[in-house]
């Protein structure tokens, strides 16, 4: 899809000392972590640990009170809005699958296809054969070939999740933020999703926020544990599960 960028940054994502509070409640509290190019990373944490707020800060929906968020070492994400950040190469999948219900699978993917997003470019846009092929490739990758001409609204919950992942891929981002992709999926779908995300990583950096331990295990990647807005522990799933602090706040009780 995309050529290897001219220079490979040290970090795709660099989050340092980020705090964000709502009415005195600190959703993020001195949060720091980094993601390397091509890395697959899982982020877990109980409800209210700040996972969604973290996504909002990275994608420009929220501005942090203090702290730095850098993309590809040099781009200060706190100075840009959602559309700009999306066009720089950060794709976001929502927790609730969000596809365009009254467009077909193909049209959904066409919208997400990277390229010029201007008003007049869109008005006179024509799909090239190459772009068609790319869309069809992604449709196949996410296993929706049979549903190509179906409306987004007619898909099952799992299929919508996949379509949304497909849309992210079509944006060809450097970094994918994926919020609870396995929620509401069958075991088989969950397994396929984990494989899909593993396949995607390498070429893209992928950050997955998830509750489902089976899914995390299947991802087989470094894990960051969030708690009350800060990083409680980091390491492999086994290391993290053996960590006393983690057992106390998350796995224990």
């Amino acid at each position, binding site marked *: 899809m995309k050529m290897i960028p001219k220079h490979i940054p040290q970090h795709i994502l660099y989050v340092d000392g980020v705090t964000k509070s709502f009415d005195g409640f600190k959703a993020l509290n001195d949060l720091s972590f980094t993601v390397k190019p091509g890395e697959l990373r899982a982020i877990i944490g109980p409800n209210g640990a700040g996972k969604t707020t973290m996504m909002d800060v990275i994608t420009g929906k929220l501005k942090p009170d203090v702290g730095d968020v850098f993309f590809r070492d040099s781009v200060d994400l706190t100075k840009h809005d959602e559309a700009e950040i999306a066009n720089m190469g950060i794709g976001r999948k929502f927790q609730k699958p969000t596809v*365009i219900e*009254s467009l077909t699978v193909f049209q959904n993917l066409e919208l997400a296809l990277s390229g010029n997003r201007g008003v007049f470019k869109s008005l*006179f846009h024509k799909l090239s054969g190459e772009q068609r092929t790319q869309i069809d490739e992604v449709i196949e990758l996410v296993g929706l070939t049979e549903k190509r001409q179906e*409306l987004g609204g007619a898909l099952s919950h799992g299929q919508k999740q996949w379509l949304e992942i497909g849309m992210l891929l079509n944006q060809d981002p450097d970094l994918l933020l994926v919020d609870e992709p396995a929620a509401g999926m069958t075991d088989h779908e969950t397994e396929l999703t984990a494989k899909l995300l593993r396949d995607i990583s390498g070429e893209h950096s992928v950050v997955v926020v998830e509750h489902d331990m089976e899914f995390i295990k299947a991802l087989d990647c470094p894990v960051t544990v969030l708690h009350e807005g800060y990083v409680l522990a980091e390491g492999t799933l086994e290391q993290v599960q053996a960590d006393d602090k983690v057992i106390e706040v998350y796995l224990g009780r």
Partner: protein
Amino acid sequence: MTSQARLAWLQSDVGGKRVLAIILAVIIVLPLLNLLVPPDSVFHVSSYTIGLLGKYLCYALLALAVDLIWGYCGILSLGHGAFFALGGYAMGMYLMRQIGERGVYGHPVLPDFMVFLNWDALPWYWYGFDNFYFAMLMVLVAPGLLAFVFGWLAFRSRVTGVYLSIITQAMTYALMLAFFRNDMGFGGNNGLTDFKDILGFSLQADTTKVGLFVASGVALILGYLLCRYVVSSKLGRVLISIRDAESRSRFIGYRVEHFKLFVFVLSAVLAGVAGALYVPQVGIINPGEFSPINSIEIIVWVALGGRGFLYGAIIGAVLVNYGKTFFTGAFPEVWLFMLGGLFVVSTLFLPQGVVGIVQQWKDKRAEQKAHAQGKTGEAVP
């Protein structure tokens, strides 16, 4: 929907093509029946009917403009009457300047109401309106500019949904109050009227009336084709994605506010054109056209006809206005209740309007006929 074939954007639009064909037939046949058939023949179409239908055509263009933003981008404007009225005023100012010395006071330059108010010179914003082309440019620019400024402020601040509807309503109300004032220089309460001719043709002449009627039909057809082109393009699909999932569109990387602004301005310009064609046919434009209730009525037309089909808006505008003409003649006191009732009925029982009902009925029949598996639903156009 495929985009392989050239003009596929029109070919797949069966309902739209039918409606366009009817409009085309009407604007060809009725003028002939009006001008060539003698008045005592049963086939004669009166100039009254031509004027009435001409009005409906203008309303249909206005409804089309509203459906473009509401049906496809989810922008519920309750102030679109303002753009219609601004286009109308721009045309009215041209027609006023055409009166020249034939006014009641016989002043060579100043319209009657200015003489009456003891003004001694034309306000600067009336300059140029004696030129038809300048006036027509203003028909596009005045509503377009208002929509641009208003939309830029509103969409940039992410005002959406019912909040946007309320401020559009406030906008048209504020304009109504402003235009009621005599010192605004637009004729105050009475507005602009007593028009004599347009481009040298008397507005009383049957041929002029027919000409305006045909022009309205042509404008409606061209407006439809333009809207259809827009909604069938990728831009149209971005609009739909904004309607269905605004934040998804943003995170894909589309500047939602730019797309909204584009379609809002386009819609306002279309509404302005409708207003400009309307005014010479009814012979008056006054601040009442800015009244909030007018803008709400447009929404009823679109809702009843079927939102998000474009041609549904045309059908709705004609149906409701025909009903209005009939009932305000036959039972004037019940019309407003009927209008309210129509809105309730269309919201409760016809969520997709008349067009939606027909579509559902057709789908059902096709399904029964085919009862084969694998039949996929047609994409929303």
